[in-house]
């Protein structure tokens, strides 16, 4: 079945272009120029994803996002024209599932749309997006892409390390094979990933201060790796 995407943006040309572009990729696209039109469209249609511009005349994107989130778990992709870190973080706190800067590369937008739709398909009771994963004495901040230790000290991760750790922490106590992990890596942001998983894992262990006797990231011989800890999801 065609997924329905509602594009809320005040620029008519951009709306039209997005309509054509996403339509070309097999989505059914609805358009709205502001909050009022957005609510009208939502009343008449069952929508799978809202692409919401941050800067809108009348009620702005942030406030619309908060109101939407209060009523439903409808996935939201924010368009942040400002590229402003602060707005990005506020946007995520207001409950957006993801964000993309203008001017975005259309393929990138498409990838994010697919990603959000897949996630919401996986887990229909998603609710508010997860902002942090807590395990052992660590917090994995999903917005800032870094770890925070028990003393509140920020431990940075490279983008590869972050994705690997997030993959493990999303599926705690489950063994993930090297192939699965590799797939997770190259899933979203494509690009040659020439480091082997094993090197990455040993780096991650060092970051986590893992000791060899009771490692957080366990090696399961001939199978892969798993995070041996309970993970709490914080929204």
């Amino acid at each position, binding site marked *: 079945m065609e997924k329905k995407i509602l594009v809320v943006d005040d*620029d008519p040309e951009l709306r039209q272009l997005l309509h054509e572009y996403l339509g070309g990729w097999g989505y059914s696209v609805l358009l709205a120029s502001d909050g009022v039109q957005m609510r009208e469209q939502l009343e008449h249609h069952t929508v799978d994803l809202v692409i919401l511009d941050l800067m809108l005349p009348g009620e702005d994107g942030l406030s619309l996002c908060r109101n939407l989130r209060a009523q439903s778990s409808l996935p939201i992709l924010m368009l942040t024209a400002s590229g*402003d870190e*602060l707005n990005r973080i506020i946007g995520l706190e207001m409950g957006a599932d993801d964000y993309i800067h203008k001017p975005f590369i259309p393929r990138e937008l498409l990838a994010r749309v697919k990603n959000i739709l897949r996630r919401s398909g996986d887990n229909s009771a998603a609710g508010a997006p997860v902002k942090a994963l807590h395990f052992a004495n660590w917090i994995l901040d999903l917005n800032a892409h870094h770890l925070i230790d028990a003393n509140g000290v*920020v431990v*940075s991760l*490279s983008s*590869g390390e972050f994705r690997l750790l997030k993959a493990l922490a999303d599926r705690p106590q489950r063994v993930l094979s090297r192939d699965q992990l590799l797939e997770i890596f190259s899933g979203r942001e494509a690009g040659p990933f020439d480091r082997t998983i094993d090197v990455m894992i040993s780096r991650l262990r060092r970051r986590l201060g893992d000791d060899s006797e009771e490692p957080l990231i366990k090696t399961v011989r001939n199978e892969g790796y798993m995070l041996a800890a309970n993970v709490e999801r914080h929204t």
Partner: protein
Amino acid sequence: MKILPRTLFGQILLALLAGLIAAQTVGFWLMLDDRVRLGERLRGTYTAQRVAGFISLIEHAHPDERDRLLHALNIPPTSLTLDEPWHVAGSIDTADTRAFIAHVQKELREPLTMQVLSIRHNSQRAKALVFGGRHAQPVADEEGDTPIGEHDYPGPPIVFLLGQAKLPDGAVLTFRHTIPRPPNVDWPLRLGVLLLVLVVSVALLAGWAVRRLTRPLASLADAASGLARNLEQPPLPETGPLEVARAAQAFNSMQRDLKRYVETRAQALAAVSHDLRLPITRLRLRMEKLADSELKSKMEHDLAEMDDMIGGTLAFLRAGTNQEKAVRLDLNAFLESVNEDMLAVGANIRLHGEASQPILARPQALRRCLVNLLDNARRYASADIDMSVSETNDHLTIRIEDRGAGMPLEEMERVFEPYVRLESSRARHTGGTGLGLAIARAIARAHGGDLVLTARAGGGLSAILTLPKQ
């Protein structure tokens, strides 16, 4: 003149003290001179009166009693004798002897033949007067207006006098009078102490007052030099003397105007950059309708470049503002992760040294700062980059060093200016937006640190980023 102090404080103080000392010196000198004149006059008058008194006594005494009287009167500083004959030769006839004789004659009120045989002056005090003056001439006062100085004795004061008077009965009285030295010989010391006390107390008081006046000027100078680095610095207190307060007011209003001006410019730049994003987004979407071609990929490249410039401009405008929250950051993990991410774009970075403790920093901004520096090293030099961490008590230094061609010394400050690229021949696809270093430095300074470039020993360039530990 190197001796003159260069500070306003020193100069004002010096002028005040010099004026004070000069005025006091002249004042004291005039007063002393007056005192000396008075003293000399009194002593001169005393000498004349004493001599006149003796002459009168001897003159009116019975000849039989004269010897006894002479004996009794022979007390220093005057010695008298009747035994010497009238010296025919050797009479000194000068202005001062005439003045002396005239004075004695006046005391005696009767003409008497007199002569002065020897007179010795105190050569040290020129212009001091011995005879004459108001104090010396009560008689003259009674007789009428005798202007002061009419009988002034023009020469230096007399210290020794030898003279003779012919008494009416033919006897000759010879007198020798030694004028005692003035008693107040310790005056320079006492006056010196007095002057010193005055100078010191005035110096302290004037120093305090002048310091009070010049301090706002010093803070004005500090504020002016600090303005270049930080437009957001707190306004100056508008206190102190009227002129200084007005200067501070003018400075504060200049800072406000400057800030407003910079803000307006920044807003305009930000607005343009923002607004450019929409057409670029549209263009990108429109291009999706085109079939893949070399032209299309070139246009995509152009658009990406525009995107970079806009992103860079916005990042630069934001770099000085601290929107991100500062956190305690594990610098070692941070540097390693930056390294990791740079490896993915083909930079080969060797990391040396370690930080001993977490620092307070804004990770996103600091990452941008380092990535810009590493990117420069990678772009302009080779892929061979050294990144080292070292510490002092209160600072942490991160050096990013390459073995590239380096940079002329005179360019090392200029490249921090926004939109300045070192070689104009380098097109944008290699040169970036010309904002990388400006952003990196703004971030370093927003962290309370700094960023400078130096030549690396043995060739190449060093970017030295210092950050405070706390």
